[in-house]
């Protein structure tokens, strides 16, 4: 009798786990087949819309604690950075008079306000509301969505250059895939017409610059800007990264080049979404 009960419990358990696995696989399949427009996406967007006011409320209360914890984790690095910045500031102050300094700051702010490479493209300024919600993708969430005209595929820039691209958007927000994400690939141009592909290798890691021919004269510090090719995934001439390392191996089919994003992706707070699509180019 006891053996029969144990057997029936085991069978029931098998059915439960089987049904759950099947349900999971069905949901994954529906998500893939919907391709951002199906029922699953609708549910996700509705949940994000519903959760965002609560998220912002919670964020206001809890973020200082998170920042404190993050600060505790990075205390050493922050102290070092503070010392470095203090040193740089002292040096700058000794070199420049305060009037000159004020003038420079004003010019920098003006540059931020009129990003030269944006041209006449309409922009929507957005605030970053969630940083890197998954350990397995380099993404951020913004507080502007379809209600403000933000759509999938639009480029996102910060003061210094390209930040990433919109991969999902709903009424009150959107998700941006950062240039450092492993799925990100940006066609770039450098020097006098050289072309390459900048690919992400994970958050906080250097970018890989691929398809640079052997013997190409590429030096550290070279600026890589969007090419405007690649079926116009991005408008041309947006700064993407600066080359940080170049090395060549004999018999290699390409140079080994790495680069650093020009935008400070670790400290994103405000960004501009360019209301631009490949069809408008």
């Amino acid at each position, binding site marked *: 009798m006891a053996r029969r009960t144990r057997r029936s419990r085991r069978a029931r358990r098998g059915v*439960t786990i089987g049904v759950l696995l099947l349900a999971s696989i069905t*949901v994954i399949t529906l998500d893939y087949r919907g391709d951002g427009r199906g029922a699953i996406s609708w549910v996700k967007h509705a949940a994000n819309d519903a959760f965002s006011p609560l998220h912002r409320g919670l*964020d206001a209360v*809890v*973020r200082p604690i998170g920042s404190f914890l993050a600060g505790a984790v990075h205390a050493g690095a922050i102290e070092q950075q503070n010392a470095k910045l203090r040193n740089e500031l002292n040096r700058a102050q000794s070199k420049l008079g305060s009037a000159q300094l004020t003038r420079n700051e004003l010019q920098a702010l003006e540059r931020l306000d009129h990003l030269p490479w944006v041209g006449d493209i309409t922009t929507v300024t957005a605030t970053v509301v969630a940083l890197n919600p998954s350990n*397995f993708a380099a993404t951020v969430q913004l507080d502007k969505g379809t209600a403000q005209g933000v759509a999938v595929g639009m480029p996102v820039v910060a003061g210094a250059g390209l930040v990433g691209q919109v991969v999902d958007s709903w009424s009150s927000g959107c998700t941006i895939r950062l240039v450092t994400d492993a*799925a990100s690939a940006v066609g770039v141009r450098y020097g006098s017409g050289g072309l390459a592909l900048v690919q992400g290798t994970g958050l906080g890691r250097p970018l890989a610059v691929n398809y640079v021919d052997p013997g190409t004269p590429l030096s550290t510090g070279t600026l890589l800007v969007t090419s405007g090719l690649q079926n116009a995934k991005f408008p041309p001439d947006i700064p993407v990264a600066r080359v940080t390392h170049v090395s060549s191996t004999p018999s290699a089919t390409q140079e080994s080049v790495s680069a650093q994003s020009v935008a400070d992706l670790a400290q994103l707070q405000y960004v501009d979404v360019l209301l631009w699509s490949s069809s408008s180019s």
Partner: protein
Amino acid sequence: MTTTDLARATLVVFVVLGVQHSLLDAVRVDGAHPDAMLLLPVAAGYAAGPDRGAIFGFFSGLAADLFLPTPFGLSALVGCLLGYATGVATRGLVRSSWWLPPAVAAAATAGGMTAYAILGAVLGQPGMLRAYLVPALVVGTPAAAVLATPVLRMVAWAVPASAADRGAQAGGGLR
């Protein structure tokens, strides 16, 4: 499972989800942060056995998937497997040691993250194994050990073990 249990389970999932996105997401080291949502199925499997662990893991995973950029259903699949595996693996353990829940949480989280990365790679997500897995393990595993006790307490309050699973737990249940 009663309506009260269901309400408690929902409350716990939403509280942990809120803490995850408002607090833990900000604690980043090398691009990775602690993952309390992955700890929910582990805690449910440990506290309530494989059946309820799998069910709770599936639904908490679905809730997590709503706010993640990775394929919808991936966390549900991993949560369901993780809750079940943790329940089966810890069913016969004597639960008298204080270090057992953190050790189980750390080991199961490492297993869950690896499974997540492998399944993600199978589904065609780039960089899951090469770019993201190592930082996630380095940060997520010790963090899971630290978060194990409070999360276990909450989940044990929300998802009690069934009579059959209670009988199978040795050493007086949750510690």
